[in-house]
C-alpha cells in the first residue's frame, strides 16, 4: 500500500534512487578505506618527503623504493602525484623546490615489480628500474 498521492511508479523510482545511491556510497567508501588507497596516500607522502629531505643533502645520496607496481608516479614543478593505473584519482604532495636545481619533470607508469631510485648529486634525478 502506498501513501495517498504517491503512485507506485514514483515509489519504485525513489527506491531505485536509494539503491543506486547506496551502491555509489559503497564504492566511494570502499575506495577511500581500501589498502590500495592507503598505499597510494602513503607512497606519495613518503616520496615527497624524501625529495624534500634530499634537497638538504650536501653530498651524493640515493633513496630506493622497491616492489612498486600498478601505480603512476608523475612529478611536475613542485607537485608529485601518485595514482592507481586503473583509477585516475591522484594523491598529491607538494614539495618545496630549490630553484637553483633543474626542475623535475617525470611520468612513470609502473606496471611490474620495479624499483624507483631518487638520487641527489648536483641535481635531483629519478630513475625507474625493472627487477
Amino acid at each position, binding site marked *: 500500500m502506498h501513501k495517498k498521492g504517491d503512485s507506485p511508479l514514483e515509489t519504485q523510482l525513489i527506491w531505485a534512487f536509494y539503491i543506486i545511491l547506496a551502491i555509489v556510497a559503497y564504492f566511494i567508501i570502499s575506495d577511500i578505506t581500501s589498502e590500495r588507497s592507503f598505499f597510494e*596516500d602513503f607512497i606519495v607522502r613518503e616520496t615527497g618527503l624524501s625529495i624534500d629531505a634530499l634537497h638538504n643533502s650536501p653530498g651524493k645520496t640515493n633513496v630506493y623504493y622497491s616492489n612498486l607496481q600498478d601505480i603512476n608516479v608523475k612529478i611536475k614543478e613542485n607537485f608529485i602525484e601518485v595514482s592507481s593505473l586503473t583509477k585516475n584519482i591522484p594523491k598529491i604532495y607538494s614539495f*618545496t623546490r*630549490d630553484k637553483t636545481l633543474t626542475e623535475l619533470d617525470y611520468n612513470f607508469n609502473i606496471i611490474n615489480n620495479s624499483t624507483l631510485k631518487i638520487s641527489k648529486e648536483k641535481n635531483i634525478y629519478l630513475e625507474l628500474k625493472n627487477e
Partner: protein
Amino acid sequence: MNKKAQSDISHEFIIWIPRIIVLVLAAGFVIFLVNIPITKNFEIDKLQQDILRQRFVYNENCLAYKDENNVYPGIIDKLKFNQLNLDNCFKANDRVGVNLNLITNDVKTINLNKNVAEKLNFCFDTKHFACTNYTYYILFKDDKSLERGLLNIAMVKLK
C-alpha cells in the same frame, strides 16, 4: 499548466526537502567517520617542517657555508642571508610561510611567502595552522672570521 499541477509540484518539492537534508547529513556523517582514522594516520606537518627547516642550515644553495671544495653544514654564510637567495632556494607552495631571524650583533629578519609568514600570531589555532619554531646555535662566516650566533626559523603552514 493548471493550478492543481502547480500545487502538486510545490507539494512534491516540499516533500523532497527533508529527504535531501537527511541524505546530506547521513553522507556527511559517513565521510566524517571514514576520515577520522585516515587523517590521524597521516599527520605529517611537523615532520615536513622539520625536514624543510634543515634545508636552510645544510644546503649550500641556502645558507650553508661552502669553500672551494666542501660544504660546512651548521656554518652560515652571512652573505647568503638575503631575500633573493632564500626565495630561490626555498620555493614552497602558497600555503607555507617562513620567518627567519639571524641574530648576531644585530638582528636580520627575512620573511618567505610574506602573506603566510605574517600569520604566525594565529598559531594558537591548531585546527587551521601547523607551526614550528626552532632556534639553531650556529657559527657564521663574516669576512674571514668565524663567529657565534643564533638562527631562529619559524614556519607556518595553512592546513
